């Protein structure tokens, strides 16, 4: 006997993601999901991003890692609410772990949650967390051929931050090819070139982020 099912395998995750979305909307909190491979510079970018955003809004962080709370500890300097999720080896955050994290935050006292996903370009892409939008963080040292290898991520992301541009003189990174390949996949992608360590390009990224968050507010 054959029984038609026609159900998305990740239905459960999608349903919880929608519930997270509703919870965030009720409390007027925005959420941005940062996806990158390990070592691209997500945490350093957040170290530069949080103090500027804090000028206008109340920020919280959900930090996802397989193990340790090293990244969360780095962000403690900003005296913001941080929830650390240790996945114990699972390569991505999912909406049910975000649901638990949202339960540990006082949402009435937040305007924005930044989610630093587990370092991985593939797995986190498949799991909607209930975010408003996604930002992919890549670094020049990973090579300029990454866009075509991860079309689903770049198709869904709103922006890409290309980090470690201060190292470009020392490596073979074809910036034009990289950007053209990205825009091939998603012509609407905003691309920011930064060095999170020396601050180059960070102001432009922050200006766009603030604007994008304001736009999301108007959409609601």
């Amino acid at each position, binding site marked *: *006997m*054959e*029984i*038609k*099912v*026609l*159900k*998305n*395998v*990740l*239905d*459960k*995750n999608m349903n919880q993601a929608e519930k997270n979305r509703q919870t965030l909307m009720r409390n007027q909190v925005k959420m941005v999901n940062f996806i990158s491979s390990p070592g691209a510079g997500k945490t350093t970018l957040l170290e530069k991003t949080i103090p500027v955003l804090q000028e206008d809004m109340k920020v919280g962080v959900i930090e996802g890692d397989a193990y340790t709370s090293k990244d969360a500890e780095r962000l403690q300097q900003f005296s913001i609410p941080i929830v650390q999720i240790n996945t114990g080896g*699972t*390569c*991505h955050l*999912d909406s049910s772990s975000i649901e638990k994290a949202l339960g540990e935050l006082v949402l009435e006292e937040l305007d924005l949650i930044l989610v630093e996903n587990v370092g*991985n370009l*593939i*797995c986190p*892409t*498949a*799991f909607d967390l209930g975010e408003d939008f996604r930002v992919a963080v890549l670094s020049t040292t990973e090579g300029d051929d990454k*866009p*075509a*290898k*991860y*079309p*689903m991520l770049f*198709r869904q992301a709103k922006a890409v931050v290309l980090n470690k541009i201060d190292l470009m003189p020392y490596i073979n990174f074809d910036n034009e090819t990289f950007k053209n*390949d990205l*825009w*091939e*996949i*998603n*012509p609407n992608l905003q691309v920011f070139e930064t060095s999170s360590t020396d601050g180059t390009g960070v102001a432009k990224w922050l200006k766009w982020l603030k604007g994008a968050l304001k736009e999301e507010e108007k959409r609601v």
Partner: protein
Amino acid sequence: MHELTVIENVLQISGQVARDNQLRRIDVINLDVGGMQHLNEEIMQHGFDAAKKDTVASEASLKIFWLPVKLRCNACSRVFGTDNGKFHCPGCGSKDTEVEQGMELNIKSIEGE
């Protein structure tokens, strides 16, 4: 790399469908997977063989139908395939295209008694 999470969900959903339809065992699970989902057949099958033990699908086979990526051009309605990261329309050159096929991750059906 998230194949195991996917397999766990496949077994959970299939098990529920089997219960809802009073199946004593599942023989086949038919899965549609789009080309943009980064999933590996070998890892899926190994994961399935390990995770299905002691379930109603313990003797089942997993049939994966890999769906190629297809895009539709919003400017000229052409439908085309891509496997090289080129998403613009090969006909009119427009970059205004939509993914029509390639993002699927669905249990199509299950077979059993």
